[in-house]
């Protein structure tokens, strides 16, 4: 299939994603018995330092949340070829784990902050950050980069984030070369399943890479108040191992 084929109709895409969410297991959805605390603006307070509940190393290809990726045959061949090209691995090179890759990157936590017109999601890995306007503004017209453009809105107590405008090319989601391209459309849903549990659901469509919508969900645990997001300098330590010395203590 030509790499640049676009989905013909936005409506078809929306219907597809809606149907995909309807099929998600009930336990991944918001707990109807739990009412989250609300901020002064009336929206639920999703703020906090969140760490993926799954333990273990960062996921390799086809594991963790990536287990639900079903590649088109040509795209699978591409994935396997990519895995042999570490020069194109923007995750391993500490550039970005992109969307939704960064959300799945144990053991690095992420920090959610809400300040009225924006939800800011900061990832410790490679100090990735996504600024998500929730003021109803539309996506821009052109591609915005490897993380695409995120726009959020509230559906009851769920934050729904729509991500499009990814730049052209194959972007790695993990160091195993799972990838997506500029035709991807990501819809995330964030909600509190309990006072210290964040439920995350994501559906990804990419008609030039995936044979069907990729649905995944993950659970995040709130980190103790004694913890905070830390600096995720990564590139810096890869090239210049001098000078970071503890000699005789400072």
């Amino acid at each position: 299939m030509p790499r640049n084929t676009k989905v013909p109709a936005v409506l078809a895409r929306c219907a597809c994603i809606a149907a995909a969410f309807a099929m998600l297991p009930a336990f991944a959805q918001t707990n109807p018995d739990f009412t989250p605390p609300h901020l002064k603006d009336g929206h639920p307070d999703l703020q906090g330092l969140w760490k993926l509940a799954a333990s273990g190393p960062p996921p390799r290809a086809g594991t963790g949340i990536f287990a639900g990726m079903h590649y088109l045959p040509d795209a699978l061949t591409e994935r396997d070829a990519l895995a042999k090209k570490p020069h194109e691995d923007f995750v391993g090179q500490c550039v970005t784990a992109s969307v939704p890759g960064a959300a799945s990157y144990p053991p690095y936590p992420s920090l959610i902050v809400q300040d009225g017109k924006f939800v800011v999601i900061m990832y410790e890995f490679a100090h990735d950050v996504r600024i998500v306007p929730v003021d109803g503004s539309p996506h821009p017209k052109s591609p915005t980069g490897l993380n695409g453009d995120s726009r959020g809105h509230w559906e009851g107590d769920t934050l729904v984030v729509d991500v499009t405008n990814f730049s052209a090319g194959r972007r790695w989601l993990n160091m195993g070369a799972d990838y997506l391209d500029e035709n991807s459309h990501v819809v995330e849903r964030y909600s509190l399943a309990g006072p210290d549990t964040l439920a995350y659901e994501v559906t990804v469509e990419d008609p030039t890479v995936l044979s069907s919508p990729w649905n995944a969900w993950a659970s995040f645990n709130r980190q103790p108040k004694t913890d905070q997001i830390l600096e995720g300098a990564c590139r810096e330590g890869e090239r210049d191992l001098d000078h970071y010395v503890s000699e005789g203590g400072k």
Partner: protein
Amino acid sequence: MHTRILILTLAALAIPSFGHHSFDAEYDGQKTVTLRGKVTKFEFINPHGWIYLEAADEAGKSGNWSAETANVSSLLRRGWRKDSLKPGTEVIIEGSRAKDGTNTVSVRSVRLPDGSKLFSGSTPDGAPVK
């Protein structure tokens, strides 16, 4: 802009490899080794810390060893500090041996002179991060 950049094939060029490698590519999780020796240098950095030491393994093979740890954030949360391993500190390091046969290990744990242990890795028993 991004089209040009991202579809370039870089493999043809002799660009030095970089980016944090995977555990499985570099270390053998089945081959554990215990090193006893003295720290000469500790680099507390991302994406991996490095402990340099003059040590001997169980077979008595001594020399300069390099021991790779998890990233700063993981270690800080496990109680490591930049002065946890001052030069001259006597340590016992358990780790996985590098596949290339060099004196390199991936650290599971470090036992300090006072008997306490520092763990490196994503699971409590210090199993490999990746």
